[in-house]
């Protein structure tokens, strides 16, 4: 294991500074700040957390503790087309698990991972509230309802052409 020194570009540091300032550098706003930062960077790499900690004058351990507590925050970049499978109860009883298995097989990744080409990432979420369409898969902002395991291949192909 080697230690490397990753530096954020000045521009990125400035962005983080502005985000923090927009919340008055208030540590109480940490979660809102992390949301904004993740919106901007796509994920929350260690350097971003370090910089947020410095701006808010709190320990980076605390920031990391918060980031790892909430499933919405991610320290790995998501794929170009993030795929989320709803595993709420309604989707579960209507076969979401089988759809998830099929997606894993098709993409050859597990939940929380991104394909090596950076195209797809796979995650689970709890109830998008489209229980009438169960089981539901979301790719980016697009919702696919009543997905059967057989449909998975075709859906993925939409994004592969």
């Amino acid at each position, binding site marked *: *294991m*080697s*230690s*490397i*020194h*990753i530096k954020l570009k000045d521009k990125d540091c400035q962005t983080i500074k502005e985000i923090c300032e927009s919340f008055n550098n208030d540590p109480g706003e940490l979660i809102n700040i992390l949301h904004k930062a993740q919106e901007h960077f796509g994920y929350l*790499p*260690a*350097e971003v*957390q*370090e910089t947020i900690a410095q701006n808010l004058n*709190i*320990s*980076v*351990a*605390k*920031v*990391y*503790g918060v980031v*790892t*507590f909430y499933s919405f925050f991610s320290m790995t970049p998501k794929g170009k087309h993030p795929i989320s499978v709803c595993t709420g109860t309604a989707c579960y009883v209507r076969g979401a698990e089988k759809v998830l298995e099929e997606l894993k097989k098709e993409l050859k990744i597990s939940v929380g991972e991104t394909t090596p080409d950076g195209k797809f990432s796979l995650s689970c979420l709890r109830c998008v509230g489209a229980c009438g369409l169960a089981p539901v898969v979301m790719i980016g902002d697009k919702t696919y309802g009543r997905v059967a395991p057989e449909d998975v291949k075709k859906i993925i192909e939409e994004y592969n052409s």
Partner: protein
Amino acid sequence: MSLINIKINGKELQVEEGTTILQAAKKVGIEIPTLCYMNLHDLNIEHNPGGCRICVVEVEGRRNLAPSCVTKVWEGMSVKTHTMRVLNARRTVMELILSDHPFECLTCAKNGNCDLQKLAQDLGVREIHYQGEQSTYKEDKSPAIIRDMDKCIMCRRCETMCNDVQTCGVLSGINRGFTAVVAPAFEQDLIKSPCTFCGQCVAVCPTGALTERDYTNRVIRALADPTKTVIVQTAPAVRVALGEEFGLPAGTIVTGKMVAALRRLGFDKVYDTDFAADLTIMEEGTEFLDRLSRYLNGDKNVKLPILTSCCPGWVNFFEYNFPDMRDIPSTAKSPQQMFGAIAKTYLAEKLGVKRENLVVVSVMPCLAKKYEAEREEFRVDGNPDVDFSISTRELAHLIKQTIGDIKDLPDEDFDKLMGESTGAGVIFGNTGGVIEAACRTAYEIYTGKTLEKVEFHQLRGFESVRSAVVDFDGLKLNIGIAHGLGNARKLLECIRNGECEFHAIEIMACPGGCIGGGGQPLHHGNTEILKARAAAIYKEDEGKALRKSHENPEIIKLYEEFLGKPSSEKAHHLLHTKYFDKKKRIYIEK
């Protein structure tokens, strides 16, 4: 405060409003077992997250069991502390905790001294019905502290010490659910975090999750090597605490027996860090008087207050958190390192041993000393001034493995050349002791008069931040004292904002000073032990014929024969150091 009537196990009693069930039960002699709860009342540290759920009790009218450590009593409350429902719950919870804890008791550093082990026995757990996956984490071995989080039970005491008491902000709860654990940011090793290695987390850890890095094997190897001359130095706070490991009451002074034991372990010479403490006073005191007289002469550039620098946890703390103020602390090395530097030059020559064949071992109440001994700047051509630093606990282990006990050993004296010390060196172990020792010497040098009454009672005590005025024959000196790094932070911010004016400040990283160090026998939350140690230190001082550092004949001889005078060029080279800005150290491990 109004009184409240309650009933515990049918016994009626009156307690003050705001009392917890746990405290109330204690009043009538009912012990409720606890695990995560910790109350260091003399230090104003109370940790009661209500997380372990071992201390649960039945409260009449309440649907579920109540955690007694955080549940306050109310008028007419009726509590049952040991019903079958409670016992079953406690035992089941204990089984759960053990089901996620490695069965390594036999090789665990905490074996026999582990809160979890003791509690499992007390609760009569003989079988673990709930087996399953155990959490595993990578082991983190720093030069001072080993984190083996497989053994963590999430009591979060370390987090309280690190964040609330010491304000180091190294540790935080991370993840959630079954994978939740306490760790530094990004789960990096402590050595890459702003950890000061004060060891307070280790001092309160109820299991073997946080332990000191054990160097006794390396010491044994050195002692077994016929080509090496192995010498040892022992810090002031060790002698008032070591006895506890052998069943003696806290505060028993075992200096002579400790020396005898070390000799029997095979150390070629047994010396005293108190000697080096006297030496520190000579250097630090001189530096202080120099800055003071320049200040009094109107020098605007002089940095006052001077801050003590003999505590390595504190040095780490300001290098990480206040690097902009790093020119304020004294440049004098700590006693451990002064001892090492003199031992590997002056003493080696006297003993006729080459530097590389002389092994210097230190016995310290402290874990940060291990890290300090490994600092680059304390080496000559790669050879460290202090080879190994072991804690009071490690020494006790070593003695138990070899001699067995110290109680029957005769009292022996330290060896000559670096074994003589004054009462001033002894009190280094207590909060306020270093500055008192410095005052004893500085007073006489500054005023040219003899100090009749050597005790400065205004500098003593347990209060976290103290200030006192010392009269140097008409010159009123403002002295500040802080123990615990959170208190140090307050004082430093005060100085930075120009809100308080001190001439000199003593800072010790650990609550109580070195007697409460991270390497001392575990107090298991009983702060009476710390008070007893502190009292013993002052008693040892009183018993000394010499009580001012500059009167130490071996110190006088050292300057005459080797160093010249305090703050000489040679003294500067060997006994002073410099500090670094470590704030912007951001490592990302890939």
